[in-house]
């Protein structure tokens, strides 16, 4: 019965697993990784979608994330005295406003003029937008940290394997990420607009020849991608203090996720976000000095072996 004490491998493994499952560290790191991966996925999939359709690496994507976070926090602080529950629609409204207004303006005023031009021009333009938005952010919201945790506080904590964690982070964020994943899949594969986006992605000229307005498709796609970035920021806002530079950290991380998955790969982005989110969370507990390094080590290792990314096709563009 107690063979484990005498070296029998099965009980030994069981006891190790028991220790592992009871390990607060393991559970905590897993939950951290899960909630962080949900946010990273939302931002990365927007970046990936924009690249898949427009063939533009949007360096300003992190700024849209930061603007989503700041506007969400501002609106949350405004509506909290009326009813704390209004902070939830405030998060959504902030995402839509940033996605539609900022995303729409960036695409119409700037990107639409450089489609098909040299990639370096597109990079320079989105980098300029990033710089402008970064300064705008400091002008509007200042440099002092902003904290608006009402949506987080409204929901009770849950206990998972003995670890108490906010249900906002371990339930709301992953559920929103999963809804975004399946919503995006449904939108692209089951709706006319999704079919039109796929057609333009595959062959813009052939799509135009059957009556598709590719310019409109680009605008809509950019707005969707920008809204996803802003949604990531809005959902992150109750979990952290907002400080200048938060967008920079996110764009670099989300680019690592999107590149590791293969740009334009939606399902692959979800899996990679989870893997990188988890790896980052575990490293924070085990070897915190490697926190920043780990996502890029994974990216470099993958790209050295598969330049098209884990889920990317060599030639076929997929979204």
């Amino acid at each position: 019965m107690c063979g484990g004490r005498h070296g029998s491998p099965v009980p030994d493994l069981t006891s190790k697993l028991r220790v592992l499952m009871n390990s607060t560290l393991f559970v905590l790191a897993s939950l951290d990784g899960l909630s962080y991966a949900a946010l990273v996925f939302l931002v990365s999939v927007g970046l990936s979608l924009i690249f898949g359709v427009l063939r533009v690496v949007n360096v300003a994507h992190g700024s849209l994330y930061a603007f989503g976070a700041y506007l969400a926090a501002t609106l949350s602080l405004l509506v909290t005295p009326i009813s704390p529950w209004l902070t939830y629609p405030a998060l959504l409204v902030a995402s839509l406003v940033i996605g539609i207004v900022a995303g729409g303006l960036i695409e119409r005023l700037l990107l639409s003029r450089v489609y098909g031009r040299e990639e370096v021009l597109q990079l320079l333009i989105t980098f300029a937008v990033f710089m402008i938005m970064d300064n705008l952010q400091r002008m509007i919201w200042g440099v002092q940290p902003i904290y608006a945790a009402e949506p987080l506080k409204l929901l009770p904590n849950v206990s998972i394997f003995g670890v108490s964690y906010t249900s906002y982070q371990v339930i709301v964020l992953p559920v929103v990420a999963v809804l975004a994943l399946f919503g995006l899949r449904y939108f692209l594969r089951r709706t006319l607009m999704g079919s039109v986006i796929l057609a333009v992605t595959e062959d813009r000229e052939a799509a135009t020849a059957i009556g598709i307005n590719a310019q409109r498709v680009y605008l809509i796609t950019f707005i969707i991608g920008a809204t996803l970035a802003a949604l990531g920021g809005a959902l992150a806002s109750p979990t952290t203090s907002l400080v200048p530079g938060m967008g920079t950290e996110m764009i670099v991380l989300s680019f690592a996720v999107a590149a590791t998955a293969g740009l334009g790969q939606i399902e692959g982005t979800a899996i990679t976000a989870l893997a990188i989110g988890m790896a980052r969370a575990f490293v924070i507990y085990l070897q915190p000095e490697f926190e920043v390094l780990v996502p890029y080590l994974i990216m470099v290792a993958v790209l050295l072996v598969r330049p098209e990314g884990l889920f990317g096709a060599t030639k076929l563009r997929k979204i």
Partner: protein
Amino acid sequence: MLSFNKVNVWIAGVHVLRNVTFDLRAGATVALIGRNGAGKTTIARTTMGFTDTTGEVRLAGADLGKVAPHQRPGLGIGYAPEDRRLFSAFTVEENILLPARVGKLDVAETKRRLDRAYTVLPELATLKARPAGSLSGGQGKMAALGRALMLGTKLVILDEPFQGLAPVLAQRYAEALRRLRAQDADITLLITESNPKLLETFADTTITIERGEIEVASQAA
């Protein structure tokens, strides 16, 4: 029906079309003949609005220069490009139906046009559930013609449809075109081809293009 008046096109600094002028009557079957690089595809792409052009392109009197490329199919122009260019993410029927869905055709009109495509190209009915990316070259050309027929109520442009087809497939494609002509006398067919013999018994009008210039334009009596 379709007219070019002193049309010039430059692509990457190369003068590809030089003062191209012609006028096609409604219901004509036109063979646009020329060697590779002569400018046949550029004439097709110019009609669809994919080139920077000087001069005048008109369809049934309407100045196409004022019509955005994505609005031109709505005028009744169907275009099957040289290299098929089907959307591999969709099945054959999804490819054929997409122009109707984009153009928001009503159910009855969509069915009428789909029936026309299947009547002209009966083999498409057996291929309709196949992923477009899995089709052979000949099947792909048929599917591209089917898709063009969903839009081409006035003008159908077929760019090098016989290129790369095995003789038996080329014959079947030619039969499909004859069925289309027999079914619809008013439609204008513009077919580009590098081999003049392939279309000599089918076309009633021949335009020969060489180095971007129209050399001969002849119309059967």
